[in-house]
């Protein structure tokens, strides 16, 4: 069984068509969804970065 991946911007399955805009927009957006489980993240944007937290998969930084 292969694991599913999710779009960090819209939260839909990454394998679905229609994510080119999401990929472009992620240059100016922090992720809003966990790419491993598709859950909504708690996100804090700071002047020079961002941090996010998934209740299942823990912290992310960028």
């Amino acid at each position, binding site marked *: 069984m292969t694991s599913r991946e999710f779009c960090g911007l819209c939260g839909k399955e990454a394998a679905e068509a229609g994510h080119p805009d999401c990929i472009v927009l992620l*240059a*100016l*957006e922090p992720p809003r969804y966990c790419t491993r489980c598709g859950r909504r*993240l708690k996100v*804090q*944007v700071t*002047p020079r970065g961002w941090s996010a937290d998934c209740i299942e998969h823990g912290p992310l930084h960028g």
Partner: protein
Amino acid sequence: MTDIVERARSQVLERGVGLGYDDLVEVLRLPDERIPELLEVAHAVRLKHCGPEVEVEGIVSLKTGGCPEDCHFCSQSGQFTSPVRAVWLDIPQLVKAAEETAATGATEFCIVAAVRGPDERLMAQMRDGVRAIREAVDINVAASLGMLSQEQVDDLKEMGVHRYNHNLEAARSYFGSVVTTHTWEERWETCEMVRASGMELCCGGLVGMGETLEQRAELAAQLAELGPHEVPLNFLNPRPGTPFGELPLMSAADALRAIAAFRLAMPSTILRYAGGRELTLGDLGTRDGLLGGINAVIVGNYLTTLGRDADEDLALLAELKMPIKELAKTL
């Protein structure tokens, strides 16, 4: 009747008197081929009445999301299906953000909360946060916490907050199409209280929200009447899940006309690039705006979205030979 650009030159550049509503409508209706000369006049006005310096600011969200208000452009409203979740920043993170901002050469650090107005918990967090920042970082602290009572205005001044942001957001005639949970007049009242307190007033708005050119001119004229120390100019970045999420981006030409119009309405005000410029104007348009009336920038990221790399903006200012305003000159 003289041409509007010539009128701007004689009235605003030479005499320092801002254009009124009718003239601003005319500016916003100028054809694309006249934008370069419009920007040239707006830039000359900025240089003569404000000087060559650029004020640099960083902003951070102390309390994100879960706002009870319904500002139709905002992803932080709890009334919409936006993906933004509620989160609070703690004091050590707040101080770190201020330090990062100061490291860019910025003189302003604005603490923002997505609220109707501050409650006791938020005011306590502000008290602790402002004190911690002032002990650790040499930077002016500003705040944006929604509508205030007179007591809260006095408390913020007492804490050492030197500038308070509260935008009109939109022209009075368009406000009801943007926000229904409070009134334009309530916003105006908070702005007047802030100004009367001796704190500097930062008050601007957004363009590209579906308003008419006349309403865009109206916003500029109403801001000029209010007379804030600083006007942040935002370009709508349509956020998913909000009522304005499907609106088209404003064109770069319209954005540049708006920048020039706001500068010609308010010759000596700090006019700041705020959110949305990356999408609306891109790199080239950002440069054009800095040569068309803008004299302040937010560097780095915004509240929920990412901005241009701060180093890119600072390099652009250096290339344009625009010195960054120093802290001593702001105190």
